């Protein structure tokens, strides 16, 4: 059995750790590339959302490298993600790829449902080992997020643009390569030391932008055209509304661990969105309110084209923008997105924010004006 899984940002680091800890053969699909997307788009339904297409490409590329079993997550709707695995299985079947799919449906009642599914993959391993493996994977998720948070702070302040990204790339490698908790701690320490050594200008007062929106596009740099890196280069300090470890805790551990999760964001969604709308629609609105309260300079919503929950959020975002006086900008991505166009739009938005920041500093604040940038 050679197991593979779809990519979502740095999630591969955790999944690989989890499976290798249990001595299971893993095929990590090649990082998403133009080829992945082309392969995926070719075989997927035209109006399916972008994550499905990239996943499809991952599976095909993993199959080429010898994978025969896919681990995929499920769901209970109403977001389409819950039915991804079913459609993907039909497509793989018609392509003649003989791959087994193990679908981890979110635990409905108890976390044990998830463990039972993992058992299906792990076979004879003891429960203790499995729990240890999950814990180790969780530590890796936390480690990646810890480093990423620092990167977000360093990027807009570094004196030589690009240094932080170099370190980040290396740090991901160190974390990925760690075989036990001790090595992992060392990797994080090493990453932190390298980051501290990057020369920065702490007197800068960068524009701060919060990123909200659909989880996959937020976490996968290939899907969001590396928006965080681009913004960092433009001198913007970026904060994301959700990190991988929080998502894992919310969705796979059912919020068992007491860390910041999407619940806080949902509480701020009313009166704008009064009901759960599937996916992260409510969180998008709630996080925007939170960012506004923390006096961020702007919010960018990212979503894949035709994403249903985000469309609901998008149509309500202008009201939030007006009420809180926070400029918002919506970036919709699909297989046709090109980075030059996106970069121009980001530059325009950042210019607007910078100007606003300067005028506000002079004491000419405007509230109650719609500031939703339609660029």
């Amino acid at each position, binding site marked *: 059995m050679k197991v593979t899984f779809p990519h979502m940002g740095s999630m591969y680091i955790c999944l690989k750790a989890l499976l290798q800890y249990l001595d299971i053969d893993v095929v990590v699909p090649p990082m998403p590339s133009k080829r992945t997307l082309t392969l995926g788009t070719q075989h997927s*339904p035209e109006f399916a959302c972008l994550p499905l297409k990239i996943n499809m490409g991952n599976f095909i590329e993993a199959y080429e490298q010898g994978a025969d079993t896919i681990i995929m997550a499920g769901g*209970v709707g109403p977001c389409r993600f819950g039915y991804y695995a079913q459609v993907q299985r039909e497509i793989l079947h*018609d392509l003649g790829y003989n791959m087994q799919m193990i679908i981890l449906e979110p635990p409905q009642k108890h976390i044990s449902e998830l463990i039972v599914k993992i058992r299906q993959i792990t076979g004879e391993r003891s429960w203790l080992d499995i729990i240890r493996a999950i814990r180790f994977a969780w530590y890796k998720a936390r480690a990646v997020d810890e480093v990423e948070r620092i990167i977000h702070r360093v990027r807009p302040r570094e004196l030589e643009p690009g240094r932080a990204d170099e370190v980040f790339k290396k740090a991901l490698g160190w974390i990925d390569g760690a075989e036990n908790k001790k090595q992992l701690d060392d990797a994080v320490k090493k990453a932190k030391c390298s980051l501290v050594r990057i020369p920065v200008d702490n007197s800068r007062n960068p524009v701060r932008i919060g990123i909200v929106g659909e989880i996959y596009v937020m976490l996968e740099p290939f899907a969001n055209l590396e928006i965080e890196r681009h913004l960092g280069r433009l001198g913007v300090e970026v904060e994301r509304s959700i990190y991988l470890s929080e998502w894992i805790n919310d969705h796979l551990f059912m919020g068992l661990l007491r860390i910041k999760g999407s619940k806080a964001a949902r509480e701020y969604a009313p009166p704008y969105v009064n009901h759960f709308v599937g996916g992260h629609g409510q969180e998008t609105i709630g996080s925007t309110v939170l960012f506004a309260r923390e006096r961020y300079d702007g919010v960018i919503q990212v979503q894949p084209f035709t994403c249903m929950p985000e469309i609901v959020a998008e149509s309500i975002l202008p009201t939030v923008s007006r009420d809180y006086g926070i400029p918002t900008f919506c970036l919709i991505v699909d297989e046709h997105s090109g980075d030059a166009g996106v970069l121009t739009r980001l530059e325009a938005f950042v210019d607007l924010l910078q100007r606003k920041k300067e005028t506000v500093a002079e004491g000419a604040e405007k509230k109650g004006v719609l500031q939703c940038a339609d660029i």
Partner: protein
Amino acid sequence: MPLRIGIPRALLYYYYYPMWKGFFKALGAEVVVSSRTTKDILDKGVKQAVDEACLPVKLFFGHVLDLKDKVDYLFVPRMVSVEHKAYICPKFLGLPDMVRHNIADLPPVIDVTVNMSRNEKNLYRAFAEAGKVLTANPLALRKAYKAGLKEQERFERFNQLGFLPHESIEQMEEGLAARNFSPGQPQNMTIALIGHGYNIFDTYISMNLIGKLRDMGIRVVTADNLTGDIIEERSNELPKRLFWTLGKRMIGSAFHYMRLDSIDGIIHVASFGCGPDSFTGEIIERHLRRRGNLPLLNLTIDEHSGEAGIVTRLEAFVDMIQWRRAAQ
């Protein structure tokens, strides 16, 4: 003067209007429906909605705009779920919020939540909540609720007789049967039309697809002509139960019709960018292709659809079915 309650002629109007009307009428309100879709209504809706919203949602906005100055209350229920563990669509879950934040100067909106996912009794609760603006008398509410259910049952009986939902509604309002209308007549060709009711029964946005097929001498059947049991049974052939009620109707009816010899072809109508349709359409297409005995036409409609293009494709499809027959 009775209170006027406005119901937009869009989205779930084609599924639940008789129930809503029966309920409000029994409570002594006057029910006002928006005008039939016109270019003007659609254009206004398109202007108010975000670009990415699908055609039926944009159209709903248009109908709300058409109604808003004519009524005392606007009925925009939040239809979360109408059956156990299945949803309608995320956009329906957020519909009252989208309407409220995109259209200015609205009359009060009755936005009760209908969520039968966990408990079917929630339906009565939703109606009781909606009726609060008219009466506080629980007995009257219960009676009106029963009246609404009765109307809905009548509506579904008409549908199973072979009427299409928009005809059944007309039938119940004015009486088509009196005008010698019988939908179930055998024709030399029968086509199953698979699509959301709010797309295929709106004569403007579907570009009178049903009328055009009938003019060619074709009988049209839809998911609405089937009982819920058949749809449930057929859609259960999928390895995982579909969690969209309307998607399940489409899958169930397509799986049922593709087994009938009396069906000559299937037309799948989707609106551009519809989330669930992108999946249900794909599954239907793949299953049909594996069987390989029934032609399928996939039509995507949006606000720019040109009528000539649709006519050409319909004609080509029908011609192809006829050639297939001649060749056999």
